[in-house]
């Protein structure tokens, strides 16, 4: 049984991942900004835990990805409640349509800040903490959109590309010191966030993503495309020459 802090467990893939972890008996500290949602998720996870509900070891702490000054207190609170922090999982982030981002520089700044700058700041704090105790897990959700620039998500993709680059660097630098970094690259997944989009072929389910991510955590992988098929799709996309990408306005 291990103890993890998780930012983004109230929705989508984060919710499913937290469920699979709680169901196998892990202790979790849910980080988030909406206390009512955190509490509802905590109850759900406590019932799912094989331990008796009152000792399920599911906690909450306040944390807002847009407010870096909440990061350190949140990690501190998580470590305290869990007894020992074995890792941090970040599935939260912001998302907006390209058109909206182009129309508002304020919105764009917010997205870039949350998905790149602040996520990196949070990971740096967690990294320090984990290295001090001899290692741990840093599992962060990036996106296949960061693999190759795609016209309708080029700004969002740029933030995710930066994030993946950062995570790769952590892996190169600190793996031997016991810090395992997992860069999760989901393809199109049917969640609340994508409910208004028509799913493309190979669209995945959040529960399948959660299963695969958990297996990757157990293996100690550094990177995972999920659902798996997206690894193959992105392999082809990365190999496609630029002239073709321009022509099809990829």
């Amino acid at each position, binding site marked *: 049984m291990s103890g993890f802090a998780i930012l983004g467990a109230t929705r989508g893939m984060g919710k499913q991942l937290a469920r699979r972890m709680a169901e196998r008996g892990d202790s979790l500290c849910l980080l988030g900004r909406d206390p009512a949602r955190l509490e509802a998720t905590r*109850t759900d996870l406590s019932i799912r835990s094989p331990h008796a509900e009152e000792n399920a070891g599911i906690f909450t702490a306040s944390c807002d990805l847009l407010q870096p000054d909440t990061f350190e207190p949140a990690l501190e609170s998580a470590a305290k409640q869990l007894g020992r922090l074995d890792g941090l999982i970040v599935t939260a982030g912001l998302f907006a349509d390209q058109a909206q981002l182009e129309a508002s520089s304020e919105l764009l700044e917010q997205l870039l800040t949350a998905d790149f700058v602040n996520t990196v700041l949070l990971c740096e704090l967690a990294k320090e903490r984990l290295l001090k105790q001899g290692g741990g897990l840093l599992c962060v959700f990036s996106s296949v*959109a960061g693999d190759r620039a795609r016209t309708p998500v080029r700004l969002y993709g740029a933030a995710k590309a930066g994030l993946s680059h950062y995570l790769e660097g952590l892996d190169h630098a600190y793996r031997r010191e016991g810090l395992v970094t997992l860069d999760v690259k989901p393809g199109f997944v*049917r969640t609340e*966030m994508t409910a208004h989009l*028509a799913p493309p*072929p190979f669209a995945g389910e959040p529960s399948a993503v959660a299963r695969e991510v958990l297996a990757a955590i157990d293996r100690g992988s550094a990177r995972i495309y999920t659902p798996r098929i997206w690894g193959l799709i992105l392999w082809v996309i990365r190999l496609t020459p630029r002239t073709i990408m321009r022509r099809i306005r990829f």
Partner: protein
Amino acid sequence: MTFRNAPSSASLPSVGNDEPMEPRPSSPLPAPGRARGRPGRSPAQGERILSGWGRYPRVHGRETTGDSLLRLSDGAVLSGGLGRAYGDAGLPPPNAQRPLLRTTHADRLLRFDPTTAVLRAEAGVCLADLIHVFLPRGFFTPVSPGTAFVTLGGMVAADIHGKNHHVAGSFGEHVRSLRIRTGDGKIRDIGPDREPELFAATLGGMGLTGHILEVEFQLERVPSPWIVEERHMVSSVEELIPRLSEVGREWPMTVAWLDTAQRGAALGRGSLWIGRWASRDEAPARAFPGIRERIEVPFELPSGLLNPTTLGWANSVWYRAQYLKQGRSLASPQQFFYPLDAVRSWPRAYGRRGFTQYQCVLPSEPAVFRSFLELFQRMGGCSFVTVVKDCGPEGRGMLSFPKPGTSIALDIPIKPPSSTPSTQQLVDRLNAFTLDHGGRIYLAKDAFTRAEDFRAMYPRFDEWTRVRRKFDPEGKLGSAMSLRLMGDAR
């Protein structure tokens, strides 16, 4: 490649967990990839084409989703879950301005007491998820339909029944309390002893008496997560019907599958599946295998591929396969309860035209079933995996389907519009037969029944309508089905 199929204005791929920053475009984007086929015009802004599990009919409508049913149900025309209703029960009235509330993202467990085995959960919780959490701990749903991919809200709205109806009744018998938002906008907690009339109207009420927000029900304790299963071959419908009642006296779970392609003496030959939960000693040491969709029908097959000839072959192949599986064995819940769940989106095999399922309950007499099957064959019908189950006494739901007798479910591919008899004529003729024998059809499967036939089958319809109107005087809730069958004004 893949991306080319996506709407060009939409943003993807993306991390599904990220939160939209802005007030999202207030209504869903149209789905251009689906705009082909019925109905003729393409969807207006914010609309998409919706259909049930049988992919017929298709209507234009709006959809909204999220994890707060309390907030979202205010203003929605109907709630829908995983879309396993075959016909139009889970569809909004065509061109409705108010959206269908898709509940699947509101799927939290709210309260569980292991000593009483009472669970309270949000309406969007999926049965497969519940099994995954509770079966390893020795609890199972007291009543299970033929798929695990249904929501709790859907199980209440259709008052589903299962292989154990003859001993356990329908799901509604095990519901202790519901929280619903009625059409008048109020949130109400109802149950067998609180607003019993509204409660009885809601069980099997197809979501038309209110949005189901939370469900509290009694789980069943089971000794192990495995089933002791026996399969017996039966050579004709004359053997099948009495054998089904006979085994029902000893076995809590019974079902039969019959071959609709045979004629004469072999008409209705098939296989009897009976089961009970394995005791701790009988259960293997293996871990509980879970419920998974393993294979996918990745695209629509051509309509007409499944026709009486190919379905006849399929029935024969399947019948022979059953021969090899005779006798006693240990089965996982997926093998026993949800064999079809292994193939994801199997309705695509019926093609663009889709299919309908005709499920009715008839008196448990072989002669009745023989005439019914002969009539079905004369009308050019053929069906694969035709399920026959015994029903026990009626439950308290005013529009609940089961009543004493035996139910049969036929999959009917939708015929091309020019063919005679048409699918409508086929269903009309089967309905006349069902009515003659005091039976009725199951709303969760239906897409073709006429209002007058439906009302003749459900004697408590007027009572139900009175309750429905009392809590929804302005008619805010409705569905494509209520427009067709329940006299809603357009």
